[in-house]
């Protein structure tokens, strides 16, 4: 089986290059969400470049759309489009903009404004139930995003309609652009909030693909209600000087920072590869 932690480090390297070259991006959230997306795209979801029109494919919405660089690198790596296309990222006229754009193969819905993914996912899950299709619907939200009221409108409807084909993930890195999520608008009782809205809640270490895999499988087995996985992550995960620093929400590394980040990511990847080979 593929070592997904190693794959996530490969994707982080691609993301670092993309952001450094394009001089734009939200690197902190890209790195915190990376293991979640890798787990979904390489192990959990029934999706692929040959299935983009398949009515039975699983559906995914990146509700925290600003982490699109990780999604782009994963879609390219999975062959949804040629990797060279990413050279246009953030350049004039490119379709590879700073938020998901469904003109790109493999992206279902546009996002970027927060609080949209879950309600749209509710509609997709409802359609699946209406048509008796077995596909599952996934969305990933940021923790800062949960201050949007529309998230809770969606949460209400998901349990009302018993959407057990819907799994939401909260990338709980505890930082947003202004600082700590708990200072900006606290969520420390997040599990209780979702439970009160009628959801099954699973806690998982969010930078551990094997633990996330177990959580996704448990969600798929849970009947009669939707599941939220509160994935406890580290913002900037993988690069020492970026980890747990709000400033790296959307800072672009300079040359020196880029070189150091590259070295660190390569070392961690090599280390994990070494472990895997033993």
């Amino acid at each position: 089986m593929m070592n997904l932690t190693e794959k996530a480090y490969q994707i982080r390297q691609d993301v670092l290059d993309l952001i450094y070259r394009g001089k734009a991006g939200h690197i902190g959230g890209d790195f915190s969400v990376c293991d979640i997306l890798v787990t979904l795209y390489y192990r959990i979801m029934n999706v692929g470049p040959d299935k983009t029109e398949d009515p039975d494919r699983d559906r995914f919405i990146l509700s925290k759309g600003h982490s699109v660089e990780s999604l782009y690198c994963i879609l390219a790596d999975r062959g949804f489009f040629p990797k060279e296309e990413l050279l246009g990222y953030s350049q004039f006229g490119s379709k590879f903009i700073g938020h998901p754009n469904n003109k790109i193969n493999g992206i279902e819905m546009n996002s970027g404004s927060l609080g949209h993914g879950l309600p749209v996912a509710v509609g997709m899950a409802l359609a699946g139930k209406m048509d008796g299709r077995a596909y599952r619907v996934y969305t990933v939200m940021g923790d800062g995003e949960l201050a949007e009221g529309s998230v809770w409108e969606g949460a209400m409807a998901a349990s009302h309609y018993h959407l057990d084909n819907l799994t939401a993930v909260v990338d709980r890195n505890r930082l947003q652009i202004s600082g700590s999520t708990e200072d900006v608008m606290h969520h420390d009782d997040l599990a209780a909030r979702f439970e009160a809205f009628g959801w099954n809640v699973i806690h998982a270490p969010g930078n551990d693909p094997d633990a996330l895999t177990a959580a996704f499988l448990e969600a798929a087995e849970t009947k009669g209600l939707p599941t939220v996985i509160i994935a406890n992550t580290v913002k900037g995960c993988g690069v020492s000087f970026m980890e747990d620093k709000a400033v790296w929400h959307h800072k672009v590394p300079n040359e020196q920072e880029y070189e150091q980040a590259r070295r660190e990511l390569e070392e961690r990847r090599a280390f994990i590869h070494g472990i895997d080979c033993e």
Partner: protein
Amino acid sequence: MASIANKQVICEVLQEHAASDRDIIVLCSDSRGSASMTPFFEQFPEQSVETGIAEQNLVSIAAGLAACGKKPYVASPACFLSTRSMEQVKVDVAYSHTNVKLVGVSGGVSYGALGMTHHSAQDIATMGSIPGMRVYLPSDRHQTRKLMEALLQDREPAYIRTGRNAVEDVYTEDHVPFEMNKATVLAEGTDLTIIACGEMVAAAKRGAELLAEQGIHARVLDMYCVKPLDTEAVIRAARETGAILTIEEHGPIGGLAGMVAQTAAAACPVRIASMSLPDAPCVAGKSKEIFAYYGLTAEGIVTRARQLLERF
């Protein structure tokens, strides 16, 4: 007076098609009664979705359904649908290009005495300003049916505004000239053109009749397609009649008047006057009382048309 409101016709048309097209879905936000959609919900419970009083969710869920091949019709009061759900309309419907049809019911000042919160004198402006969103204001029950039949055939987003109550017929059962996205010429004339949409079309038609009695011959256009505006008809009106009077149940900013003026000014500048609700909270009362107060009547049209022509 027609026996049923335009919004009821929308429900009827959807009921007629829903049995043979199981992808037709109606969504309401505790608005099935006010949107006249109760018969649909009763006949097709499996094709009905209730979201509760949550208009953001209402539109996003519809977009998700559409992204999976459904044909959702969202029916909710125009006042909420065109403002509370704006960003969902912009991002999840128009920008994501999902086949969602938004039906804003009891639009304009239909809710009369309920006041500013329930008036939607801004929905042409809000919906029309979103790239990819079409805006239709049918004038009577017959045209509403034609419009719905056309919309059922396409896969593009659209906003349809109707009023609350039954309105005077503009057309007859066996005579409803209709071409999608083309204004309907209700009367020919050479002195000026009256361009109206929605419930104001009936007033425009009667106003033209009164003007004719005074020897002024007005062309009347039913511009139910406010966006995409039938620009050819506007330019033809400017060239051939030399003066344009617009009338709409909407505020003066960002509605039919602005779009017509912009079109005519660029192609064939002529004298233009507009009749609308004010750029202020509207007075409360029955909608007909409100129309009378602001001069949005056949008689008001006569006065305004004469002023327009006298200024030459």
